[in-house]
């Protein structure tokens, strides 16, 4: 009697584990399938509209109605915008990350406060940055422009960049920092000559990650960068961007215009994939070359 009961219990234990293992495999598969579905559906819709003209011409006759032309304005605009924002963010992020990990190495409280604030900033949705950026723009009497877009996106990617640089710099052994100090280096020399060299691949990964976020985000530039058919020639002109090129042109009833949206989606996806793969390559190299 007792034995039978035990066998039953064992059977149910096994069955429960089996059911959950199947569910786990299903969940994992769902995630892989979702990614494939996204990439394949974008490619199927977009690749047929990709052509040499598409990526080398600006739209003709207005981006919302004109049937001719391509998406060069958005490609170049996006590169300008994210390039500028990434550069500006770097100017703030790298010093700050070094400050946290070398200058304030011993002051846990300061570092934790910075981390807390970065976490807060990092959590704020990009639409809030966008709305804030626009309000500020109106307040300062500026118009929608490449510059306003760059500034808004910079604010939005700084926490992302500092946080990932912080992760990299955290792993620098204290001994290395102390060794540099004991050779008589100043803090900034230690930072920029010793630590930077050690961490460059990791920092490049952080920069690429931030660039990827900058180029992909639509909500922060929606009100600040404007949209135009032309490639901007100065910081005060509005600019088109790839995400908005998708967003605006997809809403058009004209199929040719929609095709431009799908083509933009493909270009954007490819850029993001390249960033993702190359940052992976960098971080692998980083793990190999790091002195432990």
């Amino acid at each position, binding site marked *: 009697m007792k034995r039978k009961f035990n066998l039953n219990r064992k059977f149910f234990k096994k069955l*429960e*584990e089996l059911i959950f*293992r199947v*569910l*786990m495999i299903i*969940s*994992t598969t*769902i*995630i*892989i399938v*979702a*990614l494939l*579905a*996204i990439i394949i*559906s*974008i490619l199927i819709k977009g690749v047929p509209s990709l052509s040499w003209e598409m990526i080398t011409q600006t739209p003709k006759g207005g981006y919302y109605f004109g049937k001719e032309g391509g998406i060069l304005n958005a490609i170049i605009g996006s590169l300008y915008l994210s390039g500028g924002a990434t550069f500006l963010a770097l100017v*703030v*992020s790298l*010093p*700050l990350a070094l*400050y946290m990990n070398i200058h304030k190495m011993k002051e846990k409280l300061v570092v934790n406060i*910075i981390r807390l*604030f970065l976490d*807060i*900033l990092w*959590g*704020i*949705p*990009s*639409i*809030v*940055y966008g*709305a*804030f950026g*626009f*309000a*500020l723009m109106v307040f300062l009497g500026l118009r929608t422009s490449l510059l306003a877009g760059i500034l808004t996106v910079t*604010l939005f990617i*700084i926490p992302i960049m*500092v946080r990932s640089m912080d992760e990299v710099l955290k792993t620098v052994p204290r001994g290395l920092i102390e060794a540099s100090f004991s050779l008589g280096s*100043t*803090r*900034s*020399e230690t*930072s920029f000559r010793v630590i930077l060299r050690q961490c460059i691949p990791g920092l490049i990964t952080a920069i690429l*990650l931030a660039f*990827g*976020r900058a180029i*992909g985000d*639509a*909500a922060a530039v*929606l*009100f600040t960068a404007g949209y135009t058919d032309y490639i901007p020639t100065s910081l005060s002109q509005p600019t088109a961007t790839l995400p908005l090129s*998708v*967003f605006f042109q*997809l809403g058009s009833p004209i199929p040719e215009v929609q095709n431009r949206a799908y083509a933009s*989606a493909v270009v954007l*996806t490819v850029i*993001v994939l390249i960033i*993702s793969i190359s940052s992976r390559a960098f971080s692998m190299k980083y793990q190999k070359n790091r002195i432990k």
Partner: protein
Amino acid sequence: MRSFSILNFKVRRTLRENLSAFWMKCCYLLILAMPFILLIGLLLKSSLLFGEHSLMELIFSSEWKPLSGKFGFFPFIISSLWVTFISIAIAAPVCLLTAIYLTQYAKRFVLKIMQPVIDILAGIPSVIYGVWGIIIIVPFVSKVAGWFNVSSSGYSILTGAIVLAVMIIPFVLNILIEVYKTIPIELSEASLSLGATKWETIKKVLTRKAYPGIISSFGLGVSRAFGETIAVLMVVGNVVQIPSGIFQAGYPLPALIANNYGEMLSIPLYDSALMFAALILFVVVTFFNMGSRYIIMHYEKKI
């Protein structure tokens, strides 16, 4: 001559040190000031609205007639809540099961596949998710609605939630993997040597140990989902109504801001109202963000 150049060198060195330290301090202050600047900016801009309406009225009224000065945010708040919580309800079990699978059962090659999958999924821009939603999820949901005898265009709360769920999966999953990885292997050893099976160990010991981490990962997922804009905006329908079912269109707060900001500035109080929407986002998102981090910091050691 030589001593002069050494002196010069010293001066330059000190100068460089001081300059870099100064710039670092500026960056530091910028980061500390930023959340407050944002908060104050949003408060100032939305304060005009507070002059005319009480907070309760703004949040719980469902009359949205900007032209006649009526700003009831209730439909938008409810839409946001619906979309957010359905998306987390979809994402949570998937993430939990996958995290357990990847940290406890999976073979090496599965991990090798999944790491880039998660990374790429995390890097795909919001707008691409939106396009995907329109191409695949909208028709799918429309069909599913048909099975329940509901007619739906497919642009609905459920569609927004599904797209959003896929977007937050990599984010929540990464946290959960980290949570499970940091549990010491000795706990598993202890449980196994008491005669527990692997699954019992996972269920009764590891997941219990991971509990604060799990809760906070979901909280962080909520904070991420609540503010997501473009992807949701593209598939959720954007009709001002209190949705009565998941197949109906909704109009979450971020979509409200994105669709209207900067356009109808001639209507009095309108931009103030939209800033109020941004303020709600800021407060809710920061609350969930900080709350989750608090949970993981304070309860991790106690269990």
